[in-house]
């Protein structure tokens, strides 16, 4: 089976630090995969490189067998950790924007999710609370029928109810042709949802396995394993 994302000897250096060190990975299609590691381990850097926002120092990245560029950007739906929608845009403006630029944007699904969130179409981004804004961004990202979803810390800093909503949205939008890569340091909350996981420690991939394997062969939860591997 072809992989949706492949990196070879991928490294990223910032003046003094090596954020990613020789990362080799191959992610299959149709899985929900966790990119797990403590803060500063390089998760965001990896996602940004795949999304086309950073250029690697060395190494190659292939998305669906293509190098990162205009073509791969239409296959990837990226949710950054920050608010990136313009303050002045209304909900309707944002929907219009996404529909215009992304052929795979499912307007009906987006509207349906937004109505369940009770967000009025005329509200501007700056009028929404932080939590609502984050949900709004998630809705836009998950309403695209992309081949690879990159979610950077989607549940960090939100209340438990919102966390459930986000995970339900991810599960509910799952498509077995697409892969969802979730980066997080909140292992216990997401592990029920993960097919596979990667441990990223100081820019190095130390483990890549299926969650079931860990449970079956070691009788541990991912959370327990994580604590062992990343013990301070």
């Amino acid at each position: 089976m072809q992989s949706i994302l492949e990196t070879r000897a991928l490294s990223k250096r910032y003046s003094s630090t090596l954020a990613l060190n020789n990362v080799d990975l191959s992610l299959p299609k149709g899985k929900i995969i966790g990119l797990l590691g403590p803060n500063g381990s390089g998760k965001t850097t990896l996602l940004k490189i795949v999304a086309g926002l950073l250029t690697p120092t060395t190494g190659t990245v292939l998305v669906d067998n293509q190098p990162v560029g205009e073509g791969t950007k239409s296959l990837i739906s990226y949710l950054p950790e920050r608010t990136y929608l313009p303050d002045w845009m209304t909900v309707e403006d944002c929907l219009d924007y996404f529909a215009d630029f992304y052929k795979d944007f499912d307007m009906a699904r987006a509207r349906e999710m937004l109505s369940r969130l009770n967000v009025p179409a005329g509200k501007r981004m700056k009028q929404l609370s932080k939590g609502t804004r984050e949900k709004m961004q998630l809705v836009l990202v998950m309403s695209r029928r992309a081949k690879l979803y990159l979610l950077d810390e989607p549940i960090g800093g939100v209340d438990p109810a919102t966390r459930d909503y986000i995970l339900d949205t991810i599960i509910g939008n799952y498509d077995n042709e697409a892969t969802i890569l979730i980066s997080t340091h909140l292992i216990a909350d997401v592990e029920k949802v993960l097919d596979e996981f990667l441990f990223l420690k100081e820019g190095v991939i130390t483990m890549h396995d299926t969650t079931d394997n860990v449970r079956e062969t070691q009788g541990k939860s991912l959370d327990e394993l994580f604590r062992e591997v990343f013990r301070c």
Partner: protein
Amino acid sequence: MAWQFNSNRPIYQQIVDEIELRILNGTYEMGMRLPSVRDLAVLAAVNPNTMQRALAELEEMGLVSTQRNTGRTVTTDETAVSRARDIKADLLAETFMMQMQALGLSRKEVLERLAKGEHKEGDHAVNS
């Protein structure tokens, strides 16, 4: 509400156990139509692949069947259900017996204790 799972055992196995339980005790009636994999996954708050694996296992056990057009339904085969119930009950009984014996009780003592317990329950029923 999401189902409760233990994260250190394979989730799909726990889903199998839970659905089997519901079928055995009649919560999921025989012949009842099950929601789609995705809907079940959202209900249980698990990965759809995991739910898929669990359902496949349940099919293998004969408790669930797939029709071309109607999707997955709980089996209507009485014997399959009672066989599953037998297996589960036997397993639980064995486990119980082993745990009681680990306290130092003999098989006979365990059975006596069980009979006494039944009476107690009868009394309670009369008095309450």
